[in-house]
């Protein structure tokens, strides 16, 4: 949710190597968990860079990284990828490596997907990034039973 932005973010890790200034990113390893409101990220390692005391970018790698969050319309979004590059300031996430983002209305998978959390803009595939797949669940059937018409795209 966009309201997550102003929620406290707490980070938990097996081992952390803090850096007080901006020259070197903080490296957390040994199982990292980051939570902020409905956002919940699990990874093996996280490199967090800060700008004057504020975390601006987090590069997480894992086998695989798991990220899930509840969107403004209340529906959950779960994402899996081998590497997640999260630009915290303008909330653009670049998932790479066996990416799969699934929502009740459908799922997107591929090797490289860029997802703008704020506007919902998605960009997948492109040169050298392999093919991208998208599954749209049928409107009445499928997992989500919410009344809102989920995006049910099919071809006549």
């Amino acid at each position, binding site marked *: 949710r966009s309201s997550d932005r102003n929620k406290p973010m707490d980070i938990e890790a097996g081992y952390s190597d803090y850096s007080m200034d901006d020259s070197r990113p903080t490296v957390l390893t040994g199982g990292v968990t980051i939570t902020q409101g409905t956002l919940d990220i699990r990874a093996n390692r996280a490199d967090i860079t800060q700008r004057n005391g504020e975390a601006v970018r987090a590069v997480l790698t894992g086998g695989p990284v798991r990220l899930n969050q509840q969107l403004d319309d209340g529906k959950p979004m779960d994402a899996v990828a081998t590497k997640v590059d999260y630009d915290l300031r303008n909330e653009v996430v670049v998932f790479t490596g066996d990416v799969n983002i699934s929502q009740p*209305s*459908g799922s*997107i998978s*591929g090797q490289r997907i860029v997802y*703008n959390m704020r*506007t*919902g*803009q*998605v*960009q*997948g*595939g*492109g040169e050298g*990034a392999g*093919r*991208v*797949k*998208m*599954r*749209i*669940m*049928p*409107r*009445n*059937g*499928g997992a989500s039973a919410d009344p809102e*018409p*989920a*995006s*049910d*795209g*099919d*071809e*006549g």
Partner: protein
Amino acid sequence: QDDGEDWGLCRVTDVVPTFGDAPAPLDSASTPEARAQAPTDIEGGSLERASDDENIIVQDNVRLSRGDQFLGTDRLLYNADTGRYTAEGSIRYQDAGMRIVAERAEGDQNADTHRIEDLQYQLTERRGNGGADRIELRGRYGSLIGSTYTTCDPREPGWQLRAGRIDIDTEEGMGVARNATLRIGKVPVLYVPWFKFPVDDRRRTGLLYPSISLSNRNGLDWKQPVYLNLAPNYDATLTPRLMTDRGLQLGGEFRWLYEKGRGTFFGEWMADDELPGREPDRYLRSMGELPDERGLFRLTSSHNFNRTWYARANLGWVSDPHYLEDFSNSLYAVSQYSITSSAGLYGRGRYWDAGLMADRQQLADYTLTERQLRYDRLPRAYLNWAQPVGRWFELGVNGEAVRFQHSVREEANRFDIKPYIAMPLEGDSWFVTPKVAWRYTAYQLDDTLTAALGDESPTRSLPISSVDAGMFFERETSLFGDRYLQTLEPRLYYLNVPYRDQGGIPRFDTQPMTFSWGQLFRDNRYTGPDRQIDANQLTTALTTRLISEEDGRERLAASIGQIQYFEDSLVVVPGETPVEKGKSAWVADLGFSPTDRLTINAAYQWDPKFRQEDLASIRARYLVGDYGVINAGYRYRRDLVDQVDFAFLYPINRNWSVVGRYYYSFEDKKLLESIAGIQWESCCLAARLVARRYIRDRDGDLDDSLRLEIELKGLGSAGQKTEGVLRRAILGYERDDLYLVPPSSLPTGSDELTPDPIL
């Protein structure tokens, strides 16, 4: 697809080839409900979406699939919320029923409306392909604008149906075409402003394809059958028919099927036929009046009570004796001179068979008189029973009780019973069967017969004793490299029956049987019990066979036999001379089939007393390729037949075949039927041109007819169906007629109607 058409000549390549990358469409997923349930998978080189409610843009070899549907395109725009989509560039669409290639497609998933432009389509469930400027689909409705339909290969000349607009309702299964033109090759042949046609093979009421022909007897002859799908187990076909030179006729066929049996009723009726008016004297001479109301009906039905008892009915009726001649167009139909209606209850057990039936004759030929008609048997009961008894004997009885009626001739009841005892002794290579029977026949004659013959209930009873003996010899031989078992089967049959004066017995169904191989071993020379020959005769006969050891097929069977009469046989029917002491005619038969394709049958009878041939007939049949056949035959029967018959359907190559018949009677120095025809057949188009000369009427004058028939495979044929006519004229025109290959309609396990040979 089995839609009854022969697509054997069609090349496999499709107008719209299969898409390599598309999953095979599974039929089960092809219903609208199944499609709505299935998830949609989109796959592409790249995917973008400006924001949550913006269009998703997928590019670079996009592949979309849902249930049985598959869509390939270069670029796909899709809005998840509104459900609207647009696909551009090399569109390939496939589902369980068809394949389409097009330039552009768009639609709205939520409203289930789609629009495809500038497309080529190929049906997959049925044979058919074509193009269209635009297709608009709205749920169950579809409209093709500016479309074409054909079943032909584009590379071969064929036909094409072009329609301004075709509206299809998939649920109703019907399509309506508006201002449609039919082209054969480049030539527009037919323009139809509006016509409705089925798009799937559900049974439904509707028009069947008309048959149109032209003849000097009927003028323009337009038959328009209408199929009525009344219920799952019964349906009907009504056939209004307009003959410009004769008037309107209504035909109809009603078929029913139920668990225990089935039946068919066929009828034709014509209020007033103008033909008799044109040649009045033909009818006045034979009928004394002009028939105007003319009709025919035929009913065949069967009912199986249980494993033992079943009922059959075959009834027929024509309105006047000229009917068959005036309404038929084949020598086969014209050759019938009486119509036999029979119905009865029949039973069959392990050692017996019996029946309670009745049959009735109706005159259908104006050159014969009622008096020449056969007797009606109303009713007739018969029983045949034969049971082994003890270790040595076999007891049996053949009994029949009949009430003979006739419109003109005298009537009577007859009871005939023949109990017998036989002792069938047999070993591996011999058999001897002495048999003694006692035949008792009694009559109840009506007054005129009693007055004529003096005794109201004549009877006759006499013993019949016979001995049938035979031996079997075998040896192995090899012929043309194959191993055969050759048999030698000598057989003797001695018959002894005392003389009984049968002058006082009238004749109802008794006449000398055709002298043949079977006659050598029968205990009576007549077809019915009204005459029982006195006999003291011995038949000597010999049969040899060549049976292939490898598959048991009998390649050759030849037999020869003769009867030695030790005394004159005095019993005769009026006009017959007694059989004198001495030798009968030689009877020789040959059945020879060196290969599965060639069979030759010959029969020959030489009478040593008068030193003349009684019968000389030879028939050869050669099967050419998959569906060709050549029949050649010569028949000579003293004082009856001297004819040659040569008929063939010869496939020249894949597309061309010629058909012909030459049936000439030397005795009457007259051509009885000649056919010359040529057939061109391609993948989707068949054209037949057949010229025929055949005996059209009893004055023996011949009728010439030229028949052109064009068949658009998948769309029906215009013109009189010539197959039926040819099928009668050339035995084997349809391979099923020859039963050489298991008939295509091989009833698998269903208890077929007992094929009553009397039919």
